[in-house]
């Protein structure tokens, strides 16, 4: 066990997978100098420029080349820098990566991992702060992951790299520095398993990525109802058994996420729970506004611990 950061955990995971399998490689801009956040560390020195591949600013081709390379049996890890820039590569991700296996009748799989760092960080405004994870849950063929801790960023990234499906992998920019214990020899995670981080009786709170920490904070607030906090970890497939088990116990389900509430993945979970279980549901997400630069306006798009506690109280009350 070592205490390392969420960022270092990802470097470690990639290093281990690259050591294990010579067909794992990564491509993206500035990777040779560690990548925009430093998450590629010194991997280029270690593995050479063919496996830690510095690319031009060509998002369509970064993603598209990964599709071709994955179909030819390698395992590319695609770095998109900011999930916002992945919007320059949507045909490649959705029309190609997600569908190739199906369209071609199973002749090839597309084992790529697309890293799309999401979330608000600091004063980064509307084009560098988005969280669009719900989009990818809507696309058949894609697996969708969003780790919240260093240990999970280690265990889930390794699982994503070993997965034979295209995985959209969301790191949160505001978590890079978060420290935690990571067992380097742990097995990779199983994709699709949620984790109950804190037991509670009154309200089940389902969340993922950075909002996990906000929910834990809410649970610890004086006067908060007793919250059972579930870190979903994987959005597709999502762990219906764990979520439903908890919601049935508490009878109340709150889904909270940083992404915009309208059309967010909270709708999927809340609707399923309402439909299948008939429990009381509620959703929290950002208002339907772009993210502003100035802090007071930017903060309007943040989900706070107080908001989570208040929503939980409404469910109780």
């Amino acid at each position, binding site marked *: 066990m070592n205490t390392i950061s969420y960022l270092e955990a990802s470097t470690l995971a990639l290093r281990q997978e690259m050591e294990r399998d*010579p*067909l794992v*490689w990564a491509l993206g801009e500035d990777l040779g100098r560690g990548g925009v956040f430093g998450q590629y560390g010194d991997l280029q020195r270690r593995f050479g420029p*063919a*496996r830690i*591949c510095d*690319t*031009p600013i*060509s998002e*369509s*081709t970064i*993603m*598209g*080349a*990964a*599709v*071709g*390379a*994955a*179909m*030819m*049996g*390698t395992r*590319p890890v695609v770095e998109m820098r900011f999930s916002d820039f992945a919007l320059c590569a949507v*045909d*490649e991700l959705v*029309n*190609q990566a997600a569908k*190739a*296996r*199906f*369209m*071609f*009748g*199973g*002749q*090839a*799989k597309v084992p790529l991992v697309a890293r799309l760092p999401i979330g608000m960080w600091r004063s980064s405004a509307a084009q560098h702060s988005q969280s669009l994870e719900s989009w990818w849950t809507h696309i*058949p*063929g*894609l*697996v969708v992951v969003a780790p919240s801790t260093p240990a999970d960023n280690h265990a889930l990234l390794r699982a994503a790299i070993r*997965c*034979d*499906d295209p995985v959209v992998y969301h790191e949160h920019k505001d978590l890079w520095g978060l420290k935690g214990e990571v067992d380097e020899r742990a097995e990779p995670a199983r*994709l*699709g398993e949620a984790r109950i981080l804190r037991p509670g009786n009154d309200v089940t709170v389902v969340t993922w990525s950075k909002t996990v920490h906000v929910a834990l904070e809410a649970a610890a607030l004086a006067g908060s109802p007793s919250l059972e906090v579930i870190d979903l970890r994987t959005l*597709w*497939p999502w762990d219906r058994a764990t979520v439903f088990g908890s919601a049935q116990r508490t009878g109340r389900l709150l889904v909270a996420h940083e992404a915009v509430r309208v059309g967010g993945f909270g709708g999927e979970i809340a609707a399923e729970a309402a439909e299948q279980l008939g429990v009381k549901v509620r959703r929290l997400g950002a208002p339907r506004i772009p993210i502003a630069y100035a802090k007071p306006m930017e903060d309007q798009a943040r989900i706070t611990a107080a908001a989570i506690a208040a929503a939980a109280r409404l469910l109780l009350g």
Partner: protein
Amino acid sequence: MTQRPNLRDLERLKRHFHIMHRIRAFEEEAERANRDGRVGGAVHLSIGQEAVAAGVCSNLRREDPIVSNHRGHGHTIAKGAEPRAMMAELMGRAAGTCGGKGGSMHIADFKVGMLGANGVVAAGIPIAVGAAQALRLRGADAVVACFFGDGAVNRGPFLEGLNWARIYDLPVLFVCEDNGFASTTRTKSVTGGPGPGPRAESLGIPAHEVDGNDVARIDELAGELVARLRNGKGPQFLWAKTYRLKGHTAADPARYREAAEVEARWQDDPIARLRALLIELGVAAGELDALARAARGEIEDAVAFAQSAPFAPAEAAFGDVQDVGAPQP
């Protein structure tokens, strides 16, 4: 005029003749079947462009991948796919190359290195360069051929993908089949500057213009270029000027061009040209007719096979989606 081939051998030309007839027959059957509903969706015919597929693919090994666009039957046949499985795909049968999931626009046969047609213009270009990169990582010395149209040179991935092949020195042969049209639009009217070849050159890739209806010349040039690829000389660009004798799809009457223009272009039919060349080289007309008949027969057999082949069960729609989080019927 067809150039005197700097002949490799006569047998090779006869093989082209056979393959081009096979493509032609396949597409005529596909056209008919699309009109009467046996084949659905949009069917893009490469009639008039067969020389490019035949000339290029005859220089590739089975393990050399190709990537195609929406107009992919010819490339697929020339790369060695079975007409039976191809026609079954067009008819949506389980025995199709894609089990009936793709149809004409997504025809693919990975066994013979055919990595897929594509419904999105220019989308194959990044896929092709990535395939080449993967082959290098795997230590294979294969080369990749990437087919696209003159309309594709106006999409961003053209620039990105060619630049990519150049900076990593990837063994990719880019083949631009310039048939004059992008759907109903004359490509010249929406393409600035001197055209595809100079665009490739500006990205550092040597470009070679060729009469796209002259299979002997294409074969020869492609042979030289593929040899350069195998010798690590980096990507090459082949600009083949040809003509789309049919409409954009089998359903397109192509009223945006004069009948006279099309008629004139039929005079330049690459199959007729090859036939004339072979006769000139002393091959007996009877031998050529036999080859053409054989090709036609193979396709008729493929149609018969496909028509009697079963559909995949409806639940097969739930297969081949993904391993993790796979859908349930």
